[in-house]
């Protein structure tokens, strides 16, 4: 049987993929035409604001909205009483674990109790934001204050105030009968770690703390909701997943999914923070009440002060040991993750990620998920990865020092290879870690000696691993009357995937990129697709759209065979035309074919990808720093990121992902950390004091791309965007240690902390 698409000839050179092509949506971005939810203004639209808890921990005794409702210009006021109560464990599907709607409901509107400063307790829709704000001040909330726990130690202390009465620690046998702030305990292990450490020739230990950081997307959360006369709701949102948002909104409102459509507009940065809804269901409820479109725009203060989910703080202890030959014998790790005010993710992925790149016979990794009276945390680009690597890669670096071994040589000796046993016990699929390490060894960033400066300089190396996920993606391709493919993809584009997916379809059809039209469907116009998260979209959408392309082409082949009056398997397809294989055979282009057969019915190719093999991400980073030993200021002089991407669908886009991800990592490494006061209020809730790097704070990030294809994945594509944020904290810390001899145990490594460490 004839097959269509580029991979029909397995070794055919790629024409569109692998090229540095401009984004298909670049022009609207540079002209200001790209449309984000904040840019929408619907006729009759009104504006809503949320009232947020000023307390870190309190019981809500009573909420009186009478005075607010009476204010001129106020159209609707809602509290948790206006939403159905969802019991703990009301699950909606989301990846491998699902999502507990009780938590989603709590972070959108607190019921009975608040667990962090900034948690919403009421919302007001009014004719303008000024009236809405004035109305907030008229809502009376009677709080019963409770003592708060603001860090992991306080939360786990004996007699600590308990946030949630239903939390009985999972993973502890027998299961506790009394509630606590420890939500789960997870163990991954093999061999006898304690015995191996006892016999190790050299050991090293890193005990670190990492402060909460924020994804820092420049676009605050925004939603516009409209309800029509039939009760059908349309929500325009800045979301990483229109289907996940739809499930969440429907569940929170008790609304059938068929009565709701979520339209994903441009996302002004998400990085994991725009998976869960933050106000979308509230906007719909307000729109139902006031019968007008409702817009909610979060202020930057709200985004930072409890209105969105930042990344988890952590306390991590790692001990590693090696034998005489420099081979690792044991890794012992304890990972305590601060989930904020609601239970968080199992630390399992983080634990696996931090140990995955080393072949080690004895492992004992124990993880804890802890709740505290701070904003409920959410995913942030390789969630937990940078925290764990900050500990693990420093421990490895210290072990190198004890062994007197070059850190690159040490990694080479212990690197996981294809077939090595992963922490969870299964063999590694095809990976290119040793290739990466060879590339590091020959690169000037590693070989060139450091140039002397005014202050001590050092070079650090750190590795990063991220597993990513697959979940499901759908897409379909309609062939336009002129023969061009019109692509509707399911996953939201947060990383340039409309461009790379248009490249995939162009490659499959043998067309130029300009011949492909692509857009992301809303939740009623494309098949169910999970959110854009876990470095999964490029890989799984490629699979779905390769399938859809081939489906469409096989339908077209039948029509071409009829037109050319030959058997379908006697046609060759290339460059947008079918040609009869015999010498001098007739040909028909897609354009001609569609012009001739348009009224024979639509040609729609469909594709779905589920349970695709993982596209694990691996990187190695080399960082040079200078440390001002009088002020503690660390300057990153040079930074090089090596990464295996399987196949770089578009090298410019891949570099863009790596460079941006690294700079986010450098921000957390050096200057980004939430500073909570004793009352649980964030003291640096502005982009002035929450210091994300400016163009002057970072060097040009150099990228070295390695391509080790993933078997059984179309084009061998790996995930790209998450792993580059994993190594920077450790790479900087290792460079500081090499420059000064001092180990940093707290991240961010602010100048004050570095100076304190230098002064012992």
């Amino acid at each position, binding site marked *: 049987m004839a097959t269509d698409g580029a991979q029909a000839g397995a070794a055919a050179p790629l024409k569109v993929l692998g090229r540095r092509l401009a984004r298909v949506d670049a022009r609207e971005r540079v002209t200001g035409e790209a449309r984000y939810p904040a840019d929408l203004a619907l006729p009759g639209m009104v504006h809503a604001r949320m009232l947020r808890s000023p307390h870190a921990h309190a019981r809500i005794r009573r909420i009186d909205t009478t005075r607010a409702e009476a204010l001129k210009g106020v159209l609707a006021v809602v509290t948790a009483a206006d939403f159905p109560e969802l019991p703990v464990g009301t699950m909606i599907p989301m990846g491998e674990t699902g999502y507990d709607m009780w938590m989603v409901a709590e972070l959108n509107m607190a019921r009975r109790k608040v667990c962090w400063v900034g948690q919403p307790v009421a919302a007001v829709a009014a004719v303008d934001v000024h009236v809405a704000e004035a109305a907030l001040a008229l809502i009376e909330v009677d709080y019963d204050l409770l003592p708060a726990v603001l860090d992991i130690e306080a939360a786990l202390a004996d007699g600590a105030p308990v946030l949630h009465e239903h939390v009985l620690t999972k993973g502890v046998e027998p299961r506790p009968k009394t509630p606590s702030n420890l939500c789960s305990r997870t163990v991954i292990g093999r061999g006898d770690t304690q015995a191996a450490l006892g016999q190790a020739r050299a050991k090293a230990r890193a005990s670190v703390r990492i402060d909460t950081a924020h994804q820092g997307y*420049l676009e605050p959360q925004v939603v516009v909701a409209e309800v029509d006369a039939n009760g059908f709701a349309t929500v325009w949102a800045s979301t990483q997943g229109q289907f996940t948002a739809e499930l969440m909104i429907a569940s929170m409102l008790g609304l059938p999914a068929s009565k709701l459509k979520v339209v994903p507009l441009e996302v002004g940065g998400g990085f994991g923070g725009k998976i869960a809804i933050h106000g979308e269901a509230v906007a719909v409820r307000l729109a139902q009440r006031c019968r007008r479109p409702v817009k909610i725009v979060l202020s930057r203060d709200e985004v930072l002060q409890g209105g969105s989910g930042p990344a988890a703080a952590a306390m991590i202890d790692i001990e590693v040991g090696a034998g005489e030959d420099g081979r690792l014998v044991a890794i012992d790790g304890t990972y305590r993750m601060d989930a904020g005010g609601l239970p968080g993710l199992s630390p399992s992925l983080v634990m696996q990620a931090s140990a995955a790149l080393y072949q080690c016979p004895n492992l004992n990794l124990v993880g804890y998920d802890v709740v505290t009276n701070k904003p409920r945390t959410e995913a942030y680009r390789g969630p937990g990865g940078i925290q764990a690597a900050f500990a693990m890669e420093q421990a490895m670096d210290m072990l190198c020092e004890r062994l007197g071994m070059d850190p690159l040589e040490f990694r080479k000796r212990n690197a996981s290879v294809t077939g090595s046993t992963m922490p969870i016990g299964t063999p590694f699929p095809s990976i290119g870690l040793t290739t990466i390490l060879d590339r590091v060894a020959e690169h000037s960033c590693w070989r060139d000696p450091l140039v002397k400066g005014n202050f001590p300089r050092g070079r650090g190396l750190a590795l990063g691993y991220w597993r990513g996920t697959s979940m499901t993606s759908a897409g379909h391709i309609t062939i336009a009357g002129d023969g061009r493919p019109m692509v509707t993809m399911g996953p939201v584009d947060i990383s340039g995937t409309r461009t790379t997916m248009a490249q995939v379809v162009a490659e499959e059809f043998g067309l130029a990129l300009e011949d492909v039209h692509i857009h992301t469907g809303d939740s009623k116009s494309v098949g169910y697709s999970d959110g854009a998260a876990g470095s999964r979209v490029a890989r799984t959408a490629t699979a779905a759209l390769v399938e859809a392309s081939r489906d469409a082409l096989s339908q077209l082949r039948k029509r071409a065979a009829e037109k050319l009056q030959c058997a379908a398997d006697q046609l060759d397809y290339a460059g947008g035309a079918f040609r009869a294989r015999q010498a001098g055979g007739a040909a028909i282009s897609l354009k001609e074919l569609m012009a001739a057969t348009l009224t024979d019915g639509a040609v729609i190719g469909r594709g779905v990808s589920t349970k695709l093999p993982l596209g694990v991400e691996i990187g190695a980073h080399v960082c040079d720093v200078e440390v001002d030993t009088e002020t503690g200021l660390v300057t990153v002089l040079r930074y090089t990121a090596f990464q295996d991407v399987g196949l770089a669908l578009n090298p410019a886009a891949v570099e863009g992902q790596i460079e*941006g991800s690294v700079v986010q990592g450098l921000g957390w490494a050096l200057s980004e950390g939430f500073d909570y006061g004793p009352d649980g209020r964030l003291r640096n809730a502005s982009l002035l004091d929450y210091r994300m790097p400016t163009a002057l704070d970072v060097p040009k990030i150099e990228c070295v791309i390695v391509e080790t294809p993933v078997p059984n994945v179309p084009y061998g594509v790996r995930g790209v965007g998450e792993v580059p944020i994993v190594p920077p904290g450790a790479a900087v810390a290792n460079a500081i240690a090499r420059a000064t001899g001092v180990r940093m145990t707290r991240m961010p490594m602010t100048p004050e902390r570095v100076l304190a460490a230098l002064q012992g």
Partner: protein
Amino acid sequence: MKTLIDCTVNGEERSVLADTRDTLLDLLRDRLGLTGTKEGCGNGNCGTCTVLMDGAPVNACLVLALEAPGRDIATIEGLAQGGELDPLQQALVEHNGTQCGFCTPGILISAKALLDENPRPTEAQIRHAIAGNLCRCTGYGKIVEAIAAAAAARGR
């Protein structure tokens, strides 16, 4: 309270009714529908709302709409001339200097002001000129390259 504001925006004289509490950013986005200029923080710390006021880049969120009368305002919508992208826009497209796109209009306005004044900036001068514009996606490298390339193209 509403008041009539007369000002020049992208070369056009505009008369618009604004709330006295509006910022210039509100005036542009909500009253004139020029939504290319973005709001990222509302207090001058991110640069997404950068526009030119009498040729100088300013944060529109820090300017009252009431200060606009008599001023010449230029926004991202006015950068391309007659459908032709400005060399800076073209360079940003070609160098993949835009990702999520939210900072892009502000970056372009800052870069435009830089090149209007200093046609051949050094890398350090480019980085300084956009230091008031946070970008969370690109790590800045490709933006800096694009601005340098646009300067070089202008110079030819």
